[in-house]
């Protein structure tokens, strides 16, 4: 036994024989629930945002390089693909932001009751959609 946690996995079956306790079933056995789905999305949006930083750095470097490089980057961002990426980026950002704040509340010890984490999960989804749309409406109106 390399670790005491392994000792905790030792048990006896109904015949009295020593066995290792079974591990929890694999992911695909479980019905998707708001808790698990939102958790996976938190990770997925984190990875997506990481990829999105490439666009962010490209834009910054281009702006610092000069007007021509900036125009090239701006040309891509202004294209339909660019707009789509940008919209996806704001959606992922707001999701990761609100889900992250939910995680911070849990870290502080709040929101573990069943009705609380169900409601906070729904709140994260609603806040994401509302804030994404609001950011674009306000942003486009201010242009």
């Amino acid at each position, binding site marked *: 036994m390399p670790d005491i946690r392994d000792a905790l996995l030792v048990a006896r079956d109904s015949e009295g024989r020593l066995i290792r306790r079974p591990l929890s079933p694999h992911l695909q056995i479980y019905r998707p629930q708001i808790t698990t789905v939102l958790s996976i999305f938190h990770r997925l949006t984190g990875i997506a945002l990481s990829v999105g930083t490439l666009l962010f750095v490209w834009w910054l470097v281009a702006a610092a390089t000069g007007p021509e490089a900036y125009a090239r980057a701006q040309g891509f961002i202004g294209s339909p693909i660019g707009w789509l990426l940008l919209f996806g980026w704001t959606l992922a950002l707001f999701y990761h932001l609100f889900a992250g704040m939910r995680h911070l509340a849990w870290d502080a010890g709040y929101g573990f009751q069943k009705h609380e984490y169900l409601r906070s999960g729904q709140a994260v989804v609603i806040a994401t959609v509302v804030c994404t749309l609001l950011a674009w409406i306000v*942003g486009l109106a201010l242009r």
Partner: protein
Amino acid sequence: MSETGKASSSRGVEVAVMRSQLGRVRGLGAAKSGVHHWWGERVTGVALVPLSLWFVFAIIRLLGAPHAAVLDWMASPVTIVLMLCLVVATFHHMHLGLQVVVEDYVHTESLRFLLLLSIRGLTAVLALLAVVSVLRLGL
């Protein structure tokens, strides 16, 4: 459980444990750390709440703006400082987050090492590119 490093159940099953009880309580394995990573992720996360909200609104206003508008925006020391905070917090947070993803899902030792090293290098280079660009635009 006894102090001698043995775990036993009420039915008398006894298993040798290669770890002292003190080591278990202290919770520091061979890495000698763990809480540091956890706190780093949280502290940068808290910082990124206001910073990323500020950035989203700033960037949407700059959509399709000419080069001069970006220079104008970056001329303010407040913008420079907030951008630098955003860049540092973002890439630190990103490094810690991606590191956990790799540690969770990549089990081949060589590939895991390569990916962790790449993530460390890439996030550092991206952060430096962003910092230098911000300084060059604003100063």
